[in-house]
């Protein structure tokens, strides 16, 4: 599997240091991935304070049990975002019945972080984002729509089938085909 080896090696080193109780390493991981983790959570739960709680809990669980991330199972970034995504999905499913999604709140004050580090991370993020956008754009629209409804809106395959008026089996097969295509595009080409 192709990975961003330099970036990943740096992350893995940071996680090892977190396991030794290194607060600086913990802070570095939070600065690096907290913003994108918050974006993933906020996209699903649509409420800033809930997104912040989810992100904080995800990082606290890393601090409590850093062995939860196993290097042989992929990149730290993917593991973290998967953890945050699952927590956010659980959260909206729990509250779906009674929750009224709040209107977008004004942005919170921004934490000061190291400007140089931010520029470097942003450049890498832009490059990665461009690669993912291209891969998503190459998907047949019917597959892309289902992946987006599931990942960004937290809808189950059954709900999607109902909303689109499709048989559940069609939703499942489009999900599988779309993810296979993405896997081929993202993991089988050089980073």
């Amino acid at each position, binding site marked *: *599997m192709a990975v961003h080896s330099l970036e990943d090696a740096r992350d893995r080193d940071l996680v090892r240091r977190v396991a030794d109780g290194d*607060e600086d390493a*913990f*802070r570095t991981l*939070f*600065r690096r991935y*907290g*913003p*994108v983790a*918050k*974006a*993933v959570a906020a*996209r699903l739960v649509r409420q*800033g304070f809930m*997104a912040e709680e989810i992100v*904080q*809990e995800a990082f*606290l*669980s890393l*601090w*409590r049990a850093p*062995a939860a991330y*196993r290097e*042989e*199972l992929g*990149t730290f*970034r*993917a*593991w*973290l*975002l*998967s*953890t*945050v*995504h*699952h927590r956010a999905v659980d959260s909206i499913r*729990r509250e779906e019945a009674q929750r009224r999604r709040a209107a977008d709140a004004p942005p*919170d*004050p*921004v*934490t000061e*972080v190291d400007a140089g580090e931010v520029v470097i991370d942003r450049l890498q*993020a832009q490059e990665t*984002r461009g690669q*993912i956008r291209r891969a*998503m754009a190459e998907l047949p629209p019917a597959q892309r729509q289902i*992946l987006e409804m*599931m*990942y960004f809106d937290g809808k*189950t*395959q059954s709900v999607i089938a109902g909303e689109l008026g499709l048989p559940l089996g069609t939703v*499942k097969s489009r*999900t*599988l085909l779309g*993810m*296979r295509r*993405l*896997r081929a595009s*993202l*993991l089988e080409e050089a980073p």
Partner: protein
Amino acid sequence: MSSRLPHDELETLIVADELGGLEDAEQGRLARLMASHGPDCAECRRLVTEYTEVAGRIGLLLEPEPLWAGAEDALVAAARAQEPSWVEAPRGGRPARRWIAAVAVGVAAAVAIVAGVVGYALAPNQPGLRTITLQGTVPGRVSLVYQPGQSDAVLVAAGLPDPGEGTVYELWYQPSAGARMRPAGVFTPTDGSAVAPARVGSSFVVVAVTIEPGPDGSPQPTSNPIFSASV
């Protein structure tokens, strides 16, 4: 077994799980299928690893959002506050109040019942089996298959992190509200998976899992629960 078994259905379930698109019952089906393949199934590991990576990259499409003011310091302060519960929890006495509180929080968070799926797979001819899925604060899935009124139960776990050198996972049950937690058995996953016998009371209101010193665990919990559920 493992990699020689078919993975078509598993792959379909894994991709949907990584995107957050599975219903509770399907998650139980996924856990049962992975348990049937065993912890050494290289193909299962490959599928989970690769699709986790793909789903994670979809998340990178989103524009990062600024961290809220004081977020970093608040996080580190919260992390520091958690440390004593792991290293200084009482041994041999009554369970710490924070432990009970944490169980309550975990239970309040959510409890998902997977209606008999795992139970049916383990013992399809036994009526009355129930399955409860524990809510976790770490990745992985833990379900308990039990029969009301009976003490014997089976714990099924998948995707668990290694508990750490010299430690094991320990299952607990609370016979009634307010009662102290009782040990129900220890288990150590192999490559994240475990199927282990457990002994619970003839009735219980809460089950939970903690990490305890190995190989035999502790008579009472010494750390915060990482999985819990109420009945």
